């Protein structure tokens, strides 16, 4: 069914095309547009002119034959659906190339053909060569496509539009633009890679791992023509400059020669055809490179002819492979006897390839020779061009001879897997049809091909094409002489093949593009691995180091680049003794932490002192709330660190060598200097802030005297909501993370002493119990007064938490846990909910989220007191802090007991 559907699809395409053909022959260019990205100049625009029509017909016509052929070529084990859907994807994309008006759109289809080609080459996925060939083709044509994208972007910029109508009309502007050469190179890279031009040709032979219908269709008739199509398409806009001629001409010529030369030495039938295809593509390229209108017409003509004879040759080769089980010409011999019909067809097509008169290949080759001769008259040593081309022609004839003689004659087949025989009728029909075309065009060019060639040339040149004469006999002229020389030379060359092959084996066997490509690829991968490993060692130290260094570079660059002074003009505060003592103490303790960080307990005690002095600094510089917070956080942090320290090695071995330590000291010192100088530069500068507003509005607008607290719960309550969400998240994250965690508890301390027997010293236990109500009272006090005096929900929450931690410390987990609500999740949830709902409450009275309100109540006996929504918010904060802190600590405290007695775990739901 897949084949039927594909056939139907192709016919449908032809049917769509048919009604539009007459307009083209009338000289009109049909443009159809669907808006896509008009603002960026990319619409879906299709253009049907002669050139496009010619290609569309080739694509659909040969496509239809291939669909038929492949139906019988593929075996029952192959997935027809997959094959045909890829094939149709390709056909659609190829049509898209032929019919695009917008070059970006053209590129889209262009890359799609590469993708389709990749899929089709790797169709037999189990074969290594298929996979490699597909990847190579994708890499090369993909690279070209990308270059072309660059070229097209430049072209669009130069021409002011991506649409061919504009581009083709502004050839003069384009050629005069300073970006012409880079643009040209990029565009041509695309074309050359796609059309397998030297030195990018080597992907094509490797693509022969594809099923033969694919080779016939994509890799000879259509896709590889996309490159030359592009040269034809952009011919009026880009050609006619020396750059064009030299680039296109020389690459084409090299390709023509190299392809023809290598083709002769291929033993694989498809290999020969592949290199021959390369050579012919070179031929066409040379024609476009010559740059005259007539040469371009010849180029188009050869595109048609090559598509016809090469497709039939590939199909014939496919038949031979299919029916004999081999493509090796050293084993294939004398097939004339086994499959005379196929042999005849193949021989006619091969003759056309060789340029034998009365066949279509002869006509375009004659034009090619003629154009080469006339082009050669325009520069010094111009005779070299026809001479060199004749040499190429000799090889072309020789490999064509080989194709005929080595396969169908030359003795008996050697050791073939199958006994060859004629294929089914339906497999031959496409070949017959194409060979018939070879003959028809070859004998009656004016009746068959001339009209379509004429409109195609019109489309190509965007003007009336020059007169051309498709006669078989032009009289004796240089071109005919070249043809004859090629024929004779080819025959002679083939006659001496044995010696030639030996010679080739000896000297040229090694130089294969594939190996070069593979080497390049492995070098690329090695480079990638090397560079990546150099940067990304997967170590945290590297990550942190690169961060610190980057930050230093950024900060220094920022400051130095500004040219402003380090120190500002602000008056400074005098120094006093106590501050000095405290600061020195802090600095020594901090340095002590660093120096003694391997004695972890000591480091911990020292960092406690650092935290205390930080709190003192807050006190000194008028921040009581901060001091309270810092003090509470400090203790909880130290308790946490101790809980952790229990499970970590106490005195680890020294890790870093001296060089690393020195480096880190230098980096750290630089970072410290940076931070200190930045602080200095700001502290010494005068400033003006929005703070006045808060001081003015805290009481009248926020109902509190403690401006810091009013900012926290009111002016910037949203920050606080986020902050408690962070705390809640930390608790939940820790809870989730510690689940199922088992840590071996050390049985002795760092000096190897076993732990003390006294789990809960009685003195501590009984007196801390005494402290609990006291501490709770203090925490409520701090909560309630926060709005007007230092304090607030956060500090209160921490005090409560610390009071409860004290119980854990003194009386143990089991004892305390049994006296507290087991599950802290609801506490966190409700706290956050209260805070959020307090914020949402303001919606009810038509204010934005978190708008506060407060009022004064005057109750008998109690007196006048303030009720503020901010207090509810602070209560939420309080609950989250208590819940989160306890959830974290308790769970950690429980951790080592989990391994022993899981049953004691408080039930925390998922």
């Amino acid at each position, binding site marked *: 069914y897949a084949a039927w559907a594909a056939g139907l699809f192709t016919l449908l395409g032809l049917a769509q095309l048919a009604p539009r053909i007459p307009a083209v022959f009338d000289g009109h260019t049909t443009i159809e547009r669907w808006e896509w990205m008009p603002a960026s100049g990319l619409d879906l625009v299709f253009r049907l002119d002669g050139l496009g029509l010619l290609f569309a017909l080739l694509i659909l016509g040969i496509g239809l034959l291939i669909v038929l052929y492949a139906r019988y070529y593929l075996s029952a084990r192959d997935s027809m659906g997959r094959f045909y859907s890829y094939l149709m994807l390709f056909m659609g994309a190829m049509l898209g190339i032929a019919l695009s008006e917008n070059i970006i759109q053209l590129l889209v289809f262009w890359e799609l053909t590469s993708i389709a080609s990749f899929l089709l080459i790797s169709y037999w996925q189990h074969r290594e060569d298929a996979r490699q060939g597909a990847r190579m083709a994708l890499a090369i044509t993909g690279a070209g496509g990308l270059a072309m994208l660059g070229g097209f972007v430049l072209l669009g910029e130069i021409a002011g539009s991506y649409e061919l109508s504009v581009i083709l009309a502004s050839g003069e502007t384009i050629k005069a633009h300073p970006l012409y050469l880079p643009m040209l190179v990029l565009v041509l890279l695309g074309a050359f890679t796609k059309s397998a031009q030297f030195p990018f040709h080597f992907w094509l032979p490797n693509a022969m791992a594809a099923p033969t219908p694919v080779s016939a269709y994509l890799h000879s008739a259509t896709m590889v023509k996309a490159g030359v199509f592009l040269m034809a398409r952009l011919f009026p806009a880009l050609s006619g400059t020396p750059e064009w001629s030299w680039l296109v001409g020389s690459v084409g010529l090299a390709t023509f020669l190299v392809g023809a030369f290598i083709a002769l030495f291929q033993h694989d039938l498809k290999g020969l055809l592949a290199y021959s295809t390369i050579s012919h593509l070179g031929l066409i390229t040379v024609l476009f490179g010559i740059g005259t209108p007539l040469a371009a017409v010849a180029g188009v003509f050869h595109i048609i002819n090559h598509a016809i004879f090469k497709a039939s040759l590939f199909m014939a080769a496919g038949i031979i492979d299919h029916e004999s089980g081999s493509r090796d010409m050293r084993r294939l011999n004398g097939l004339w006897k086994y499959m005379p019909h196929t042999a005849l067809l193949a021989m006619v097509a091969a003759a056309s390839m060789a340029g034998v008169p009365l066949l279509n290949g002869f006509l375009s080759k004659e034009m090619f020779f003629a154009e080469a001769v006339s082009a050669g008259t325009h520069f010094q040593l111009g005779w070299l061009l026809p001479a060199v081309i004749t040499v190429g022609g000799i090889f072309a004839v020789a490999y064509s001879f080989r194709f005929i003689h080595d396969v169908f004659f030359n003795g008996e087949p050697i050791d073939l897997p199958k006994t060859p025989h004629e294929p089914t009728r339906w497999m031959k029909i496409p070949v017959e049809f194409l060979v018939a075309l070879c003959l028809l065009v070859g004998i009656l060019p004016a009746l068959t091909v001339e009209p379509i060639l004429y409109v195609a040339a019109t489309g190509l040149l965007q003007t009336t094409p020059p007169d051309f004469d498709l006669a078989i006999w032009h009289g004796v002229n240089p071109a005919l002489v070249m043809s004859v020389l090629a024929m004779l030379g080819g025959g002679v060359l083939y006659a001496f093949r044995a010696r030639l092959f030996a010679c080739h084996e000896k000297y040229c066997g090694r130089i294969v593009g594939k190996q070069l490509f593979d080497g390049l690829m492995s070098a690329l991968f090695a480079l990638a691995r090397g560079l990546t490993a150099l940067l990304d060692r997967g170590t945290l130290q590297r990550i942190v180091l690169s961060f610190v260094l980057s930050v230093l570079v950024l900060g220094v660059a920022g400051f130095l680049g500004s040219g402003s002074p380090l120190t500002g003009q602000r008056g400074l505060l005098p120094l006093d003794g106590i501050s000095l003592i405290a600061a020195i103490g802090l600095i020594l303790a901090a340095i002590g932490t660093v120096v003694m960080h391997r004695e972890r307990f000591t480091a911990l005690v020292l960092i406690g002192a650092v935290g205390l002095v930080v709190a003192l600094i807050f006190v000194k510089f008028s921040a009581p709330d901060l001091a309270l917070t810092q003090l509470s956080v400090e203790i909880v942090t130290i308790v946490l660190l101790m809980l952790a320290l229990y499970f970590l090695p106490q005195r680890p071995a020294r890790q870093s060598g001296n060089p690393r330590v020195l480096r880190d000291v230098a980096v750290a010192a630089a970072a410290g200097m940076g931070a200190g100088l930045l602080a200095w530069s700001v502290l010494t500068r005068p400033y003006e802030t929005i703070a006045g507003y808060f001081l003015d509005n805290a009481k009248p607008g926020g109902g509190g005297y403690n401006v810091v607290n009013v900012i926290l719960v009111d002016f910037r309550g949203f920050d606080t909501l986020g902050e408690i969400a962070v705390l809640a998240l930390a608790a939940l994250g820790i809870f989730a993370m510690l689940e199922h965690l088992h840590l071996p508890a050390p049985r002795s301390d760092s000096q190897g*002493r076993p732990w*003390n*027997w*006294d789990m809960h*010293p009685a*003195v*501590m236990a009984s007196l801390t119990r*005494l402290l609990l109500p006291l501490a709770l009272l203090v925490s409520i006090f701090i909560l309630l007064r926060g709005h007007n005096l230092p304090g607030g929900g956060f500090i209160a929450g921490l005090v409560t938490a610390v009071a409860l931690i004290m119980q854990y410390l003194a009386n143990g987990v089991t004892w305390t846990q049994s006296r507290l609500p087991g599950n802290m999740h609801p506490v966190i949830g409700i706290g956050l909910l209260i805070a959020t709902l307090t914020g949402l409450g303001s919606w009810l009275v038509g204010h934005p989220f978190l708008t506060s309100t407060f009022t004064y109540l005057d109750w008998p006996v109690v007196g006048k007191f303030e009720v503020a929504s901010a207090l509810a918010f602070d209560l939420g904060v309080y609950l989250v802090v208590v819940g989160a802190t306890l959830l974290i600590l308790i769970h950690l405290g429980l951790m080592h007991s989990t391994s022993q007695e899981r049953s004691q775990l408080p039930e925390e739901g998922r």
Partner: protein
Amino acid sequence: MDYLLSFLIVTGAAFTFIGSLGLARLKDFYTRLHGPTKATTLGVGCVLVASAVYFSLHEDGISLHEILVTLFLFITAPVSAHLLSKAALHQQLDSLTPRKGKADSNLNERR
């Protein structure tokens, strides 16, 4: 009244200082422990009382909440000291006194 205040302030500070001096100066942990736990409680106590007096005089209404801190320190400081010496014994820190066998043998535990 200023004299009383000044006296309290200086006395308190002096005791605080002496406590820390003991911490710095004495030769073994157990003796060092005495300084801070005692001297500082009284030292800080004096300063707190000074504060109470000062704010009772200088602001309307008496200020007695400083007593809370004092009370709190009186409850906690001995517990800290007790635990510290317990820890020091556990770590078998050297003492200036040769420990008497009788006193320790049953105390210097191993459960």
